[in-house]
């Protein structure tokens, strides 16, 4: 299946100028009335559906040529070939043979233009759906609207080692901020310090609660409760020691014994435990030098592991409820530099997604023959943000209700990629 937009005037062109007028930040709050507030009843319904998100973030900017949009034999195509996939007519780079066999579970968007070549800006655009401003990441939004009220675990867990972080919750409650796990290790600083007994810890905790009560006087209760909730969630997570113990050897054989394999295995477990959004970062795609050798190495790790994880999610019957996203903060330049590298490129990149709410097996948009520009159906991080949320049942065109203020959930100047939604 190939999804293609009707040719003609592209409303996104108009939208972009409108976006510039609106500016960023909480100015968007002034747009109250654009959408309606997400009602408690609707929010409860969404939580009841138990939708989840798996984000696989290829940090540094995976090359679209070496992944989802190969251009073999063209000027900037590089040395790799395109291979057929489980979707007739759809080809991806030969560096992902295992993923190629799972493409019937995914769709590709090949026409993303972020208009930035900056790591941080690109990442924030892809996460927040806005080119600028203080807004929550998609994982934090999912945590707020999809997490079960009785689920004691954090709603948004990010498994990584390093990378750009920040206020992922934006103006949402702190409990919806990402809980960052350093690899497959449990959260830090939650255990008892050396020399502190259980009894002393209990007395210390009681003192903290007492001080909290005093602190709450005259302050926003929701804010304090939110921090309390964050602390409790992390503590509940660490209590599940089986999550962080030795991983099953047979499973590691399947997933790979490298860090990414271990992280993806933990991601599967966290999804099974009910964490709403699990984000796994695979580092090593900022390939200004040795782009091709690095992609051989990095995608060799990514490919089999990701395909295994995707297959497990499907086989366990979870895929209808788990949205799977593979993305980067931008792509890489068509031009190959003298170091056999490709540099930052936000003008034409790709993402892949599948599972919950997404029509699988499709390709949205295209780039020109040399891959230097989007050819049709241009979209950006805003469209993707809407699409992700709509796929998991969140009406992204409605508003957050933040202490009485209405703030559009998704960027009002963009819209979901409707042809991707099932």
């Amino acid at each position, binding site marked *: 299946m190939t999804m293609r937009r009707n040719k003609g005037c592209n409303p996104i062109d108009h939208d972009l100028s409108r976006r510039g007028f609106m500016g960023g930040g909480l100015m968007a709050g002034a747009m109250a009335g654009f959408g309606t507030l997400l009602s408690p009843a609707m929010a409860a319904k969404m939580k009841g559906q138990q939708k989840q998100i798996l984000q696989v973030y290829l940090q540094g900017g995976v090359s679209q040529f070496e992944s989802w949009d190969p251009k*073999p034999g063209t000027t900037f195509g590089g040395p790799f070939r395109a291979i057929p996939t489980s979707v007739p007519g759809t080809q991806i780079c030969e560096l992902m043979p295992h993923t190629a066999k799972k493409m019937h579970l995914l769709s590709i968007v090949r026409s993303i233009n972020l208009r930035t070549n900056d790591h941080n800006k690109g990442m924030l655009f892809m996460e927040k759906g806005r080119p600028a401003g203080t807004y929550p990441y998609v994982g934090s939004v999912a945590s707020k609207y999809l997490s079960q009220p009785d689920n004691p675990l954090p709603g948004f867990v990010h498994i990584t080692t390093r990378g750009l972080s920040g206020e992922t919750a934006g103006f949402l409650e702190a409990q919806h901020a990402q809980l960052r796990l350093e690899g497959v290790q449990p959260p830090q600083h939650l255990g008892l310090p050396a020399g502190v007994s259980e009894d002393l810890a209990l007395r210390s905790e009681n003192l903290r609660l007492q001080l909290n009560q005093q602190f709450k006087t005259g302050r926003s209760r929701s804010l304090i409760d939110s921090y309390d909730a964050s602390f409790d969630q992390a503590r509940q997570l660490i209590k599940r020691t089986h999550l962080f113990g030795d991983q099953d050897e047979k499973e590691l054989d399947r997933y790979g014994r490298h860090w990414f394999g271990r992280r993806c295995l933990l991601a599967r477990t966290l999804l099974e435990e009910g964490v709403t959004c699990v984000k796994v970062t695979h580092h*090593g795609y900022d390939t*200004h030098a040795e782009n091709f050798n690095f992609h051989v190495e990095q995608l060799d790790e990514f490919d089999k592991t990701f395909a295994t994880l995707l297959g497990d999610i499907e086989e366990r019957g979870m895929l209808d409820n788990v949205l799977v996203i593979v993305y980067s903060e931008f792509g890489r330049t068509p031009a190959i530099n003298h170091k056999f590298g490709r540099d930052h490129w936000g003008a034409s990149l790709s993402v892949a997604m599948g599972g919950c709410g997404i029509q699988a097996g499709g390709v949205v948009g295209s780039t020109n023959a040399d891959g230097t520009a989007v050819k049709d159906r241009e979209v950006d991080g805003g469209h993707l943000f809407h699409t992700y949320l709509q796929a998991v049942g969140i009406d992204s065109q409605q508003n957050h209700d933040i202490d009485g203020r209405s703030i559009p959930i998704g960027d009002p100047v963009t819209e979901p990629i409707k042809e991707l939604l099932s």
Partner: protein
Amino acid sequence: MSCNDDSNPVDSKVASDTGVAEVDPTKAKEIQKFTHGRPLTTCRVEPSGKYVFVGAEDYGIYRFDLETGDKVAYLGHDSWVRRFDFSADGKTLLSSGWDGRIGFWDVEPAVIVEVEIAAAVEKTEKEEAKAAVIQSQVAATKMIEAHQGFSRWVHVAPDGKTIATCGNDKLVKVWSAKKMKLRRQCVGHERHPWAVMIHPNGQELVSEDIMGEIIVWGLKDGKQRSKIDASVMTGFDLKFQADMGGARAMAFNHAGTLLGCAGTTNVVNAFAGQQDPIICIIDWESKEITHHLRTKDNKPGIEWGVHFHPAGFVAGCFAGQSNNGTVEFWRLDELAVAEPEAAVGADADGDLDPEKSASTAVAETEKSKPIEQKPFHVVKVDKAVRGIDFSSDGRRFAIACADGSLRVYEL
């Protein structure tokens, strides 16, 4: 080791036999320059010295006639080519491509066809597209599916009977040259091997992977004989969490007493090209790294070539992080002999350990401290250099550059 006495391991006998002992790298000057529309990846001088073959960032192999400048495209690979070799009689060119195949081509093909091609194939990024160009094309005489994954290297044994290849299936393969029949598969690399060479003795072959693990194999049985730790040539980039290293080029000297492996060391940020170039010289008898050949300025980049010249020096080519390049020439100093009184089993307090002999201590000194050798001469190139090869008579060399130029120098 010195370079001009009878014991010189760097091929002094060859030098005297061929009459190139007096070749002087300090007199190297560029005599020819040819251009291709795409950046070059490697080059080889054909044994007769009439042609130079280059690989490029397209799917072609290109033969340049050094007398006429004529260019012929050898087409058949579906990917880039980064390594060539020649049959023992010099009549056949062998190529290893990232399409997993080994190509066989006539150096002097009976049929060359003239084909009109789209200008985009030949134009550079800055050039205006021309309407069309005529390209002289040659087809392969044979293409062999050699590896699942990219064929990284091909080498024909000095006796011409055996061919070695390696690829991203982590295998080193040994083939009979006559019918290109697979004789042996050498299994043991845990990561991708990037280069393989057959030893001049015809009994062994050696390969190096991305992790700097060098494995010596028996040519007859394909079994591992020994390993050499060249982990100095690799590094784990902590920031980006990836390994990078391995041999970008590999060569034996004529006598087979020395092995040279070119690549990188001191990885700081391999993703930005921030690592030091290096050529490791390995003494084949002891299997120890005896020399680290370093560039004069030690600027970040990659050493893409290594060549043992019969006149007694080692040549390498360098691609800098800033798109500059050099060709550098080294002579191998004698290994330092440790002072016995300082080396004989002295512990931290200066006390002597009677269990350790002087020779053991010297050996440990040699093992732990390869000589850091600087070049005696540097030829500066205004573009990154990605490959180097010498003519059979040792009097000329060619370099492949990142700007698409092939440059020929005379010594």
